[in-house]
Every structure is written in C-alpha cells, then in structure tokens.
C-alpha cells in the first residue's frame, strides 16, 4: 500500500514536472507554431527537369557532384563548397573555388523546395543553378566541351549517362550533354530533404495536444520559439516548414563585397536570371511551371537584398549571412536585437526594427534555432553504388 502511494505520488510529481516544463502557449501561438510543419513536406521535383526523380539520373548526378574532374584543373567539384558534413555548405565566410568568391555556399538541404536558388536567386531550378558554378571562371571554370569529354572519357560515368539519357555522351552536341549533366546533378540535389528535428517532434506533439511529449522540448527552446513567432516577428519572413518565404530581404548589413565594390544581391540576380539561356523560360527546360520566372519584377529596393535562408540545419552552417559577416548564431540574434534602421536600404519598407533582446532572450532564441538541425550522426550518407554495367 505504501509502495502504491509512493508510486502515485511519484506519478503526480512527474506529471506536474511535465506540465511545468511546458509554457502556456496561447491558441494563437500554437497556430503560429503549427504553421512551421508538418515535416517532411510532400516530395518535390526539380522544375523543368524531366530527370528529377529518376534513379539512374540521381546516381549519375551523385557521381558528378563529387567529381572534381568536371573542373579543367581537376581540383574543384560541387562538393568542394557543398560538403555533406557541413550541411552541404562549406563553413567559410566566402567560398573558395578557383578563386575566392564574394559569398559563401548556401546549404543544399531542401533546396528542391526553394523557388529561387543561390543568395541572389539568379537560377529558377536546381539544374540551371548547377550550370552557373560549372561555367564561372572563379568557381569551376569549366565549359561544355570539357564536361562532355570528362563524361565520355570515364567508363562508369559514360555508362551511367547512357542509362539516364538513353544515348552516349558524345551523341549530342557538347551543350546538350552539359545541360544533361546539370539535370543529373539537379536530380541528385533534389533528393536532399533533411530529417526531422527536435522541433518537429515538439510541433507535432503540441498540435495533437500531447503535453507530456511536448514537455520534452527544452524550456529555453520553447521561450526562444515564443520570441520567434511573437515579439521577434522572425516568422514574418522565416515562414512555413522550411522557415523561409524563399524571397529576399535587406537586413541592414553592409553589402560591399570589396572596398568600393557593391554586391547588388537580388537586383543582379534578377538580371542574371533573365539573361540566362538556361532559365525555365528557355528551350532547355523540360516544361515546368515558369510562372514566377515570367512575372518576377526588378525593383530598386532589390539592391542589397539577399535570400531569406531556410533555418533548417542553421546551427551547422556558420558563419552567417551571404558573406559570413556574422560568426555565430548569437551574433545573428545580436544583429537583429541592435539593428540600426538607418542602415536599411528598403525604400521606406517598414518591417525590421531593433528587437532590444536581453542576454537571456538571445540565448533562448539560439537554443530554439539549435533545435532546427537533426540530432545524432550525419544526416546524409552516400548511398552505395555498384559499378555501372
């Protein structure tokens, strides 16, 4: 009897602890939190890429992604700047291809769900984005003929190409083979959808009213999440399951890429998109919805705007912002806390205001952001590939 009473007391104590470990989120807060899920989202395809989703193309794309021979000097691959161990980013303030670039490599996790690729959104598909670093003299410095010759000259790559595209690499002109290679890379990148996180468990538990499961989410993260969807107004741009609206913003950071040299950000991105022979409106696109590419409109305020990044995996992608100006997540929180509105170049737009966060609030925000990365080991392991026959 005494033992039963003790167990009952213990149970009541545990229940009280669980209740105490869950903030009293309001119905409005719960709705706001629920909008950051569910995860994973429905499967998506690389737009304008008929190869997206085909295992043969994915396998070829994976091989090409890690193959530095696509660069004529043989030392830069896609994976040189998009390292799986660093959430497919590179951990540098500014990426290093054949030369140092003006921006860093964004994470490729969930890139298939993005409307625009890269910090300036200059590409409207994964395959189109894959062509940019291939041809950029500062990145891989390659060309169509070299890409074609590399694939044709390697027995395994040539075999995989033939399986994916039903023709030999040299059967078409070099540009066609290069675009094919880019579509294979796009098909591979489209498979990178990140695993669930501690936040996802909390979000789902809260949505189904499971207080005990929800209470497993650290209190500091709960307080940070409350700030995120509430006073911080972060969820205005970092919306939805990916924590990004996929658009562009000026966050009051200097956008000089070099002394006297301005990085025009989104403005240049729209110009590059329109000039690209490989956008979704081009003859190279295999159909696909090109509505946003057709209707995107350059505006003066696009100068100095950069992509609102997804916050999934954010704890693994330091340093932050397009050129790594902020070293840590605490620096990011401090930036928005102490933001100088005078430094915004937003043509009167009124979204960002200094948040005035206390030290503890910044720590809470960081604690929340840290729960947006998967726990445990590496989120991606290279699938085993048999030699192609």
């Amino acid at each position: 009897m005494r033992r039963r009473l003790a167990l009952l007391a213990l149970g009541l104590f545990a229940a009280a602890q669980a209740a105490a470990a869950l903030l009293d989120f309001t119905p409005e807060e719960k709705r706001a939190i629920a909008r950051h899920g569910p995860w994973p989202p429905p499967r998506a395809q690389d737009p304008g890429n008929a190869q997206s989703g085909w295992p043969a193309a994915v396998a070829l794309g994976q091989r090409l992604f890690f193959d530095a021979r696509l660069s004529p000097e043989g030392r830069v691959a896609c994976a040189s700047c998009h390292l799986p161990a660093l959430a497919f980013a590179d951990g540098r303030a500014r990426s290093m291809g054949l030369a140092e670039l003006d921006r860093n490599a964004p994470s490729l996790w969930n890139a298939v769900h993005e409307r625009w690729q890269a910090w300036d959104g200059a590409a409207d598909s994964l395959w189109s984005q894959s062509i940019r670093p291939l041809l950029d003299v500062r990145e891989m410095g390659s060309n169509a003929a070299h890409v074609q010759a590399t694939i044709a000259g390697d027995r395994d790559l040539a075999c995989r190409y033939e399986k994916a595209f039903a023709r030999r690499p040299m059967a078409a002109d070099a540009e066609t083979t290069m675009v094919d290679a880019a579509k294979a890379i796009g098909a591979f990148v489209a498979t990178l959808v990140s695993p669930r996180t501690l936040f996802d468990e909390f979000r789902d538990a809260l949505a189904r009213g499971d207080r005990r499961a929800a209470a497993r989410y650290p209190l500091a993260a709960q307080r940070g999440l409350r700030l995120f969807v509430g006073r911080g107004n972060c969820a205005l741009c970092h919306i939805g399951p990916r924590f990004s609206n996929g658009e562009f913003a000026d966050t009051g950071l200097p956008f000089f890429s070099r002394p006297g040299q301005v990085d025009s950000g989104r403005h240049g991105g729209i110009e590059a998109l329109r000039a690209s022979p490989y956008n979704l409106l081009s003859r190279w696109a295999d159909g696909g919805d090109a509505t946003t590419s057709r209707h995107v409109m350059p505006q003066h305020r696009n100068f100095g705007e950069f992509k609102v990044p997804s916050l999934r995996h954010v704890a693994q992608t330091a340093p932050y912002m397009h050129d790594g100006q902020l070293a840590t997540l605490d620096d990011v929180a401090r930036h928005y806390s102490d933001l100088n509105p005078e430094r915004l170049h937003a043509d009167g737009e009124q979204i960002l205001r200094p948040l005035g966060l206390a030290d503890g609030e910044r720590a809470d925000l960081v604690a929340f952001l840290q729960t947006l990365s998967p726990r445990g080991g590496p989120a991606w392991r290279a699938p085993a590939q048999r030699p192609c026959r």
Partner: protein
Amino acid sequence: MKALWVVCMTLVVAPAIAAPCGEHLDAKARRQIDGDGLSLNYAPRPSPIPADRNFELAIAVCGAPVTALRVDADMPAHRHGMNYRATVQATGDGRYAAQGLLFHMPGRWRLIFDVDTGGKTVRLTQEVEVR
C-alpha cells in the same frame, strides 16, 4: 404609348441590372468591390490566398465598358508591394484572368484593381488577411 415605352425599356435594361456580376466565379471564393458605378467581383485560386505561393484571380467587372484592367497588391503597414508583376488577360464579356501574383509574407495585404473606363482610371481596393 408612354406605358409601352416603359415596358420596352424595362425589358431591355432589366437583364443588365438583374444579371449578377461574376456569377460564373466560385461562389465560396468570390469577393465584391463596388465604386464609381463599377462592380468588380474576383475569386482567387487557390482560396483562401496562401502566403508564399502563386495564385490567380478570376475577375468580372460590370457597370461600364472597361478598356483595360491592371492588378497589383501591397502591404500598407509594411510599405512594400509584391516582388512580382501580375499579368491580366481579358477573356471577353467583362471577364479577366490575372496571373503571377504571390504574397511573400503573412499579414494584411491590399489588392489593387485599376480599371480604365470612360477615359479615366478607377482604383478599387480590398484588404485581405493572409496566414
């Protein structure tokens, strides 16, 4: 004689008045704005308008001949507009289709319809809450 004239006029005018504007639009999604003798009905697709996704508007304008229609939107509280320029296609009988709209954040947006009619432009607006 006068009575006959009135009857004839009623027969001519009545259908124009009685015919509801935009009755072909999805009734659940349909919204109406009236102003300057115009009645504009629109229905978004998808409905309700989502944040961060493309949507279209099916539109009907009644009350006066329309020479052109332009569609735009902004967030008055934030002082910014869309990042996209909508295109409008006339499909006949005062009907239009607007494409390429995208509200890139949640909050209160204002749909703006500029209707060219009778040598002037009538601006009709309506606010919508996007979640």
